[in-house]
Each structure stands twice: as structure tokens, then as C-alpha cells.
């Protein structure tokens, strides 16, 4: 897999939970209104400024809390990859299942100013800030999980295998 690169957004808070990423109050709203609520309690107005191909740089234990499929909301906003100090365990699984490339990379917050062009490679665990030249090493993703992402996520895999 080659690196995913794009303009960065930084949500530096620790322990941003899935109630903030995918609020229950948005479940039954039209898609645009639901998307506007993504992280609105953490950073009002952010969701409407994100563009396709942007990367999200996040803090410690990003996506902690409930098991709801919150990475789908980031994908719907156009986020192409997530790189964080660390990622909540269920949220990490959901990134894999819903095909959002994700990299746990300690030290990344200090290495990025919002707007920098950054790149992540989930196979090698490599992170690069292409605006500054800084490189970091994160946790490489095991092949089995990368294959799920490459296939377009768990549902796509199960369809291909005739389970659904």
C-alpha cells in the first residue's frame, strides 16, 4: 500500500468520544444535518470545512466510548486517513471494518501544525509531515487488517464471500 497524503486537520483533545463524533441526536436527521454534527461539541463548524482527501490528526485515545460505527462519519466528511497519538480500541476496529486507514503514532501532535500536508503509510507505520520534512514511526498494521481495508471493509468482504 502506498502512503495516503493530504491536508491536515488537528483535533488535539484527549479522549474524544464517539458521542461527540457521531451524536445520537443526529441518527435520524438527513445526511447533511447529521454530518454537520460530527465533532461539533469539540470544534463547532469544523465538519462543514473538511474536504475530500483531508487527513485528521488526533490526540490520545481518540474515539473512546460506545461501539457505534463512528468512523463512517469521518469517511462521509471525506477524511482519507486518521493518524492519532492513540485510538480507542473499538474505534480502531471500526476504522478497519469501515475501511478508514488508521495509524497510531505517538508524538504526532507535536509534529503537525494544522494545514500541513501529511502522509501516512499503514503498512510500514510511517508518518511524514511533507510541509516540514519531519518523519515519525507509528504502529504498522498487520496484513490481515490491511486486507480488510483494501477490500473496502468488512461488509464488502462478507458480500464477496457469499455471507450476505
Amino acid at each position, binding site marked *: 500500500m502506498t502512503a495516503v497524503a493530504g491536508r491536515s486537520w488537528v483535533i488535539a483533545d484527549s*479522549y474524544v*468520544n464517539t*458521542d*461527540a463524533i457521531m*451524536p*445520537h*441526536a443526529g*441518527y*435520524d436527521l438527513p445526511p447533511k444535518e447529521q454530518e454537520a454534527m460530527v465533532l*461539533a*461539541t469539540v470544534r463547532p463548524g469544523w465538519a462543514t470545512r473538511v474536504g475530500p482527501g483531508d487527513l485528521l490528526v488526533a490526540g*490520545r*485515545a481518540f474515539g*473512546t*466510548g*460506545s*461501539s457505534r*460505527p463512528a468512523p*463512517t462519519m469521518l469517511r462521509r466528511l471525506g477524511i482519507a486517513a486518521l493518524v492519532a497519538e*492513540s485510538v*480507542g*480500541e*473499538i474505534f480502531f*476496529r*471500526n476504522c478497519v*471494518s*469501515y475501511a478508514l486507514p488508521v495509524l497510531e503514532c505517538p508524538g504526532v501532535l507535536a509534529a503537525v501544525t494544522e494545514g500541513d500536508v501529511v502522509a501516512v503509510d499503514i503498512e510500514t507505520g510511517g508518518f511524514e509531515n511533507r510541509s516540514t520534512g519531519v518523519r515519525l514511526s507509528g504502529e504498522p498494521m*498487520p496484513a*490481515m*487488517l490491511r486486507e480488510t481495508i483494501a477490500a473496502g*471493509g*468488512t*461488509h464488502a*468482504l*462478507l*458480500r464477496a*464471500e*457469499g*455471507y*450476505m
Partner: protein
Amino acid sequence: MAGLTMAHKVLAARSGRDHVRPGQLVVTDVDLIVMADTVFNPTADRMPTDLLRVSHPERVVVLMDHAVPAPSIKAATAHRRAREHAERLGFRRLADVGKGGIEHQLIFEECLALPGQLVASNDSHTSAAGVLNCAARGLGMADIIQLVCTGKTWYKVSPTVRFHLTGALPFGVYGKDVFLHLAEVFGSQEGHDVEFAGPGIEAMPLDDRATLATMCTELNANFVMMPADRLVREHVASVTGAPYEPVVSDPDAEYAAEHTVDLSAIRPRIALPDAMNGNVRSADEVAGQRVRIDQAFIGSCANGKLSDLRIAAEIVRGRRVADGVRLIVTPGSQSIYLDAVRLGYIEALASAGALVTNSTCGACAGGHLGVLAPGEVCITSSTRNFKGRMGSADARIYMGSSATVAASALEGCITDPMPYLRELQNREAAG
């Protein structure tokens, strides 16, 4: 080679290995898979199309708890799909509306999993089954669908933090207060399994242990393991004669950290709004601020137990919920509801002006049966006080034990439950 913790033994057994170590990725099968109603919502991010074939239907339980009874056409459609799948695919059990309850309560009550087993579900509070010495944790919905289809899932093996509990719960202190104490003193345990040991855990009633196991999800813990002591074995024996093999940690198992906690030193605690870890105060300190409340909620997988309904009923018996306050009580299961009817708890609660609902996740998840308006203040004994958790992101949610919530509902502001509890104790002593 170092010995194994309880959770590592379960992972080793279910992945066909002699040994596992932190950092490894293991592929396992699972003894019990629970699909909640939310999985069946007919949307792209849930179960977008019907399942055609499954691996081990006898391991799968389908249950309705998040949106019960259906508050919307979407939820009703999910329920219909859930029933259709359970029947067509021959799943082990369908816990339908009125015939089950909240998942984690039902697993405990009905021993849907047994000590030493591996449990997976799409609900984040699945660690609750740790009270039964099960290795249990929440996965994503897609993981659960994959598990049901293929029979397999994966885990990254975590290092373990052990809490060695000594002493016993003081009068008026509950499992919720123990969790709040851990959240205050030790904070997030992200990336780790948590294990409880020592005479303190064995001295704790099962309901309090179950609350603690459930709430450890809010320490961001993965597997949460408790010993299969005499109380657990007696509970299992009262439900089923099925054989099982509990797991015990090896004496030379390695821990990332070990902490000793004296239960007898813990006092009622309250979490302030928006977070629990590092955001806890003593109940009497918060009570001193006379924080006015609009809603008081007792329920959820953590605290919808018979013991929660009992203490709430005894506190409000013969009194009235304060004007301007809604006290909502949601039993954790249909069987708790029925026991509470028989024991007069529901009459005491309803007479005091509390609203007792059917068993459901309900207000805890902000979906229905008690959603908060902007600007409102709630005190809850449920699982989360995150911003926006129970409705409006402009509502404020405090968290305490069910005794703290019940006492607060009477006063109309956040209250230390101790005076009410002492009066109860005196009344009982007087006979």
C-alpha cells in the same frame, strides 16, 4: 516464559495456542455472540443486507434492548429483521420485547455465558460479563456480523493492570462509588485489560461487582476479569447445571501495574459533567453546591439492578419527588421488573412520583424514554456522562450511585445520600 492472566488464558484457549503475549494479534472463535437490535437497523453502516449463511447459530443470541418498545418505524423495522434472522438462521435465543432485558443484565441473569468463556457483542459495555469470569468486551457491529458469519474474529492481546481489593464496602457505598473512586485516583486504563483480585472483590455483592465490571469500560479497559469465587459458582449453579472451567491467573503472570485499593476507605462519589476519569468529587462536596436538577435517572446495564431499585424505593418510600424534577427508573430486565413488582418497589417508586419504564437502554443512550433538553441538568446512575450522551449537547450530566440519584430527586438538587441511608438504617434497626 511468564504465566498467563485470566483473559490471556481464554484467548490462548480460543485461538488454539499454549501461550499469548501482549501485542500479539490472535484469531479466535467465541463462545457467545450477542447481536443487539441496533445491528439490524437497515442502514449502510449497520447490517446493510440480510445474512445468507452463518457459522455457529447455536452461539448467537439476538436481543432487543436499545430501542424497546420500538419508538420509530426504523427501530420497528430493525426488530422485525432481528426476529426474521433469529428464526431463519436458527439462533440460540431471541430475547424479544418483554421477554428479556438489557443485554449485560441478561447475560448475567441467565448465565448465557459461563466462567472461562469468551464473549463478544456489538455493545461497548460487554465487559460486564467479567463478573462471571468471562473474557468479554465490546466489538464493532461489523465485527459482530463477521463473527456470526465466519465464526472468527481477532484480538490484539493487551497487557493487564491488576487491582487488589482489600476491606469491604462501607455502609452506603456501592459498586458505582468504587468505579468512581478508580476513575478519580487511577483514571484511564486505555490499552489494558483490568483484573480484580483480593478479599475485597470476594466480599462484594454480585450486583456491585457487575456494576464495577460494566463501568470499567469507562476506564477505557478492554477485558475486565473477576474471579469465579463461591458467590459466582452458586449463582451459576442456581441457573444451569452445564459444565464450565473457570480461569485463574497464574501466580507468575506479569502485570503492567498492580494497585491495592482499600474498599473500606471509599465514600460516595459523584462525577461532574462530560467526563469521568479525573473528574470526580465527594458526594458531600458536590451536595454543598446545591446543584439544581431537572432529571434523575436510575437504570442501564450498570445500575438497573434489583438492588438499585430496592435502595431507590426505600429512599423515596412515603416521600415525593421534588416539584420540577423527573425521576425515571428503568429496570435492567423483565425479571427485575417482575421482582420489583412483587417486592413493592415499583409501588413505592410510582407513589413517590417516579416514572418506572420498561427495561431498555432508554435514557442512558439518549434515544428515548428520558431525553434531555438544552440547558437541563441530570444526575444519573447509568453508564456515561459525556456531553450530548442523553440528548442535547447543552445538557449537563452528573453521575453517582442509585442512592445518590434517588436522594437528589427528593431534594431537587444533588444531594449526599448518607442522611437518607442512615435514617433507613435506624428505621430497620428499630424493626
